[in-house]
């Protein structure tokens, strides 16, 4: 830390200690990296709103370690190089002492390389698993979590015999399908197709035709964003949704809006959160959300809400560790648990054990049809 920065912090601290304040110490600046532009930009508003809700609720509880939480937002929707610039700015120049990130894995990789375990970093969205770096804590669902209990259940429920796997050609798509394949074969069902598409594709007719030809009765959809919307719409327009079931692990409210409820027959989504969950915790959360932001609030969805989860995770670990230093937090994290709108959450191996919901779609949107409690993430981080 150079002299200038030291001077600034000292002055700030002094000023705050003079002002009459229920918070004893300086505010705790938390950098929140969410996509405000780019293909995932549509999740920005809901993530921001959830972050603000989390901060205000935490502050009303006394803050973190007695310090008031202050949010610094950065755009994680840019290319990894620019996103890491933004994060760096919040950390080095803005004085952030913790980072909550709701963005893609490429940015995550870049940020891990930038932070090098010097600042606690909470990664919140659905992802492919495998993050074990020092100082990182993952609230997001993993393919194992979303599929291990779900595939056997749905295969039995709907008597599925042949699965087709389709995904975007990158690590999340491939890892999810690989995990899914494992679980599918264990149930005794067959895998009759496995294909990967680049992000730039927006014509899925050939893939839909192949799915039809293969005679599959279920499709595991590991597509992202626009690809997911396009594929699912095409699928339905060829009349396949009547006979063939779809299961996806990243189909949330925005994507569903794009697909259209009419095209979502026999479409299932496995996720840690849906806006329509009817548990008391989830309902209370939804109520606070609409109270704070009004009827025009950005639509609640799994990815945006995961930002809220990240804050709860930060709060819980910091409380147990008594400090924000990475060393202490890393030592304290294992076994920490807390209650969130998603249910009861326990931190294991840098990831979380959480409830997984499976929903299909009715006229009102997602409808939870099955809940699996305390599903492990299937990740083992040695450190």
């Amino acid at each position: 830390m150079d002299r200038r920065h030291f001077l600034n912090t000292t002055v700030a601290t002094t000023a705050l200690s003079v002002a009459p304040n229920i918070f004893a110490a300086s505010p705790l600046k938390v950098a929140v990296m969410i996509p405000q532009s780019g293909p995932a930009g549509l999740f920005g508003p809901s993530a921001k709103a959830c972050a603000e809700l989390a901060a205000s609720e935490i502050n009303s509880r006394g803050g973190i370690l007695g310090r008031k939480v202050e949010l610094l937002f950065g755009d994680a929707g840019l290319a990894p190089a620019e996103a890491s610039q933004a994060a760096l700015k919040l950390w080095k120049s803005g004085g952030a002492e913790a980072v909550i990130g709701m963005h893609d894995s490429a940015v995550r990789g870049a940020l891990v390389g930038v932070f090098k375990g010097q600042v606690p970093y909470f990664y919140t969205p659905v992802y492919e698993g495998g993050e074990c770096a020092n100082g990182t804590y993952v609230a997001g669902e993993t393919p194992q979590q979303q599929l291990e209990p779900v595939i056997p259940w749905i295969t039995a429920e709907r008597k599925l015999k042949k699965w087709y796997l389709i995904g975007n050609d990158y690590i999340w798509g491939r890892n999810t399908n690989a995990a899914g394949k494992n679980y599918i074969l264990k149930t005794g069902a067959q895998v009759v197709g496995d294909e990967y598409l680049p992000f730039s594709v927006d014509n899925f007719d050939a893939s839909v035709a192949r799915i039809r030809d293969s005679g599959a009765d279920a499709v595991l959809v590991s597509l992202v964003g626009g690809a997911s919307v396009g594929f699912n719409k095409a699928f339905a327009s060829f009349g396949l949704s009547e006979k063939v079931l779809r299961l996806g692990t990243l189909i949330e409210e925005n994507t569903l809006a794009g697909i259209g409820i009419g095209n979502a027959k026999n479409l299932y989504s496995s996720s840690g959160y849906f806006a329509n969950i009817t548990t008391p915790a989830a309902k209370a959360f939804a109520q606070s959300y609409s109270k704070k932001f009004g009827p025009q609030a950005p639509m609640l969805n799994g990815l945006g809400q995961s930002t809220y989860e990240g804050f709860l995770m930060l709060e819980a670990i910091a409380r147990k560790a008594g400090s924000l230093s990475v060393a202490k937090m890393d030592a304290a994290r294992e076994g920490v648990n807390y209650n969130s709108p998603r249910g009861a959450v326990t931190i294991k191996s840098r990831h979380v054990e959480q409830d997984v919901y499976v929903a299909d779609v009715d006229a009102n949107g997602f409808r939870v049809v099955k809940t699996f409690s305390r599903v492990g993430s299937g990740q083992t981080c040695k450190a």
Partner: protein
Amino acid sequence: MTMDSGVILHGLNITYELATLSLTTLGLAVVFGLLGVMNMAHGEFVMIGSYAVVAVQQLGWPVATAMPVALTICGLLGWVVERWLIRPLYARPFDTLLATWALAMLLRKLVEAIWGKGYRNIEIALPAPVNFLGTPYPAYRLMLIFLAMLILVFLYFWYRKSSAGLRVRAMTTNPVLAEALGIDTKKLASQAFVIGMSLAGASGVLLSPLIRIEPGIGVDYLLDAFFVLVVGGLGTLAGFTGGVSVIGGSQALVSSIAGQTSGYAVVLIISIIFLWLKPDGIFSRR
């Protein structure tokens, strides 16, 4: 499911891809092929066409009004752009390219500001799949295929046989001589540009129920259209259909064998080779 219906389905899929490629490329074929203007904002006009449908739905107007709305907006915008941006830069092809690219950015950002970055869905009840040659196929797509074929036939007769087409052909082969003969080339150029942009907007309207609608979709349509014209050749109908067949066909063929990435890569490679060896395309005006 018999083997035949599988083949027919694949055949229909390829035809559909060629049809949509033709529809979205048509506007640029007019502007780039006939006027020689590298309009980098072409894709954004297609995008605006799709958003016209979104807007019309939001306002509660009947869906049929989307087409006239799109045509009006795109036509007007086309007229303004031709007058203030393209015409002064006719002699500077690179600058036209850049100016239209900046325009594309502007249009994208404006749409983002109004509708946000999220996906939009057109709430339209598409007719159920229809049995075509023994295989169920979405009726709307069939309609698009027939529409594309109809437009191509119409264009052939118009360009080759009508007097307006004759004037356009005169203007593109020898603008100076055309002017000397009393053809108002400025007005013709302006009209051609407006028509080109309106065609782009119209294709956006037609495709809207089938594609994802968000502000960033323009770039893909632009690049595909460019490559079609480069490979096929500018200014001739044979070139247009040739380019669509080569680009669309090779992409579909390679994709079905080696995956979509390879398909796209092959399109890029073919375009590069043509740009290098035969930049006038297969059927050039010469």
